[in-house]
């Protein structure tokens, strides 16, 4: 940037601003109970200080909130932050403005999944999907299978590294490869299906467009 002098700087600044999506903050805020509190963020950095993993994130939680307000959809959804977050709620309970930061992280993840913008070799998004798919389909999650599937998809070498721990657990009856399942898988499937059919709109007007509808992802960001 500096090499191009101030002209280049202005250009890249303009490009950045052109990419911003001013509606991003409102869109995310509407998805999370009390999510609109993010608009009142003081940028005090308490969340980043409370976060035990912020040093492993490319953007600290504070910056994620500010970039969200600025409408930097791509930066936020493409950050490692939303996947490094361990959902430990340390930030949420410390935030002086009571911003539900952890729930916002979940909302960002949902958006990133929808937009297909999650890093394929990160274990976390892959494991998240495997666990939820297994829970919804079989009604139970089997630890050994989730780990195996996630590693096969991301980094099969990890399986070897984990083999020793796995073996020690097996010897003590703490790990099995039997896939667990509930009896009434049909009921669970129907429950989840019924949810999709259920009216999603708040209030008495069921025809209103709803938060459940997929949001026009990248085009809106222009």
């Amino acid at each position, binding site marked *: 940037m500096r090499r191009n002098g101030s002209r280049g700087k202005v250009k890249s600044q303009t490009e950045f601003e052109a990419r911003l999506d001013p509606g991003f903050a409102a869109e995310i805020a509407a*998805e999370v*109970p009390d999510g609109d509190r993010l608009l009142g963020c003081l940028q005090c950095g308490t969340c980043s200080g409370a976060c*035990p*993993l912020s040093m492993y994130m490319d953007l600290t939680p504070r910056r994620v909130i500010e970039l969200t307000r600025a409408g930097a959809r791509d930066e936020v959804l493409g950050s490692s932050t939303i*996947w*490094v977050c*361990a*959902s*430990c*709620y*340390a930030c*949420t*309970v410390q935030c002086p403005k009571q911003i*539900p930061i952890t*729930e916002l992280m*979940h909302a960002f993840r*949902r958006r990133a*999944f929808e937009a297909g913008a999650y890093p394929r070799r*990160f*274990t*976390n998004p892959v*494991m*998240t999907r495997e*666990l*939820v798919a297994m*829970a*919804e389909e079989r*009604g*139970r*999650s*089997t*630890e050994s299978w*989730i*780990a195996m599937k*996630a590693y096969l998809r*991301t*980094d099969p070498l*990890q399986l070897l*590294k*984990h083999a020793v*721990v796995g073996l020690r*657990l097996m010897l*003590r009856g*703490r*790990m*099995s490869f039997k896939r667990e399942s*509930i*009896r*009434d898988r049909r*009921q*669970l499937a129907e*429950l*989840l299906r*019924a*949810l999709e059919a*259920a*009216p*999603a*709109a708040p*209030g008495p007007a069921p025809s209103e467009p709803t938060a459940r509808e997929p949001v026009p992802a990248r085009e809106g960001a222009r």
Partner: protein
Amino acid sequence: MRYPYYPGCSVGGTAKAYEESLLAVLERFDLGLDELDDWNCCGASAAPSIDEDRAIALSARNLALAEERAEDSAPVDLLTPCAGCYRALLAAQRSLAEQPAVARRIDGALQAVGLRYERRVHVRHVLDVLANEVGTEAISAAVTRPLDGLKVACYYGCLLVRPNATFDDERNPTSMDRLMEAVGAEPLDWPLKTRCCGGSCYGADPFSGTTPQGALSLSYALLREASRRGADAVVTACPLCQFNLEAFQGEMTRTFGTPIDLTVGYVTQFVGLALGLPERRLGIHRMLRWRLPEREPVAAEGGVHARA
């Protein structure tokens, strides 16, 4: 009395000893567990990252199942040993109570499959029930083999008291410390009680390429501090915390160069030991490492108090 019981998936796997020791301890107080028939996985912290309504529905089915066998209109105490499940159940309850639109959708879907949730369930974590229902006094009175000043670091982890603290302080919880005192152990003063162990980070995956050693460094920080303060053991009340802190100590030693070798057990195991229950019934044989200082031989008479 018997509690409706939601074990969660880990208890069938890595946390088998948690359930075994829980059953043994409760039995001593004439309490039993009735496992919910055909309960389903709560989706842990992962489910809300895919779809919030579906995450709530997973727990709502379990809440409905908990009410099914209870008498009409009677409140139901649903017991769960896992902090992850506990959070999921509480989060579902909170959404159902505070978001009418969500409640309508979930109730409608439950109804469609012949289920009904009448908001009668009170979700209780094992630690809550031990400390506040069984009570530290009753437990202390039942001690036959006090833990003799065993130095313990009480580790609550993140999701037991956050984000919806119900039975203890969200920053400085004390129920486990009081429980350990009641059985003659010496809970250490340490500041990492509720700091995340990294277990939910990527499903106890300290080798992940996501964040080199991110999760591992979190559990390492906890164990190093516990060791430094002279802990003989770390006491946990969550399957994920226990596994994460116990299983990767070798890897920690190799990665960080400081030898880490600490016993990490479930709160129910330590209570059980003090009640004089046989190690086998407490699942001690399932632990990857278990080394505690020798205690006095078994007291000749039962009912010896932990402290004078």
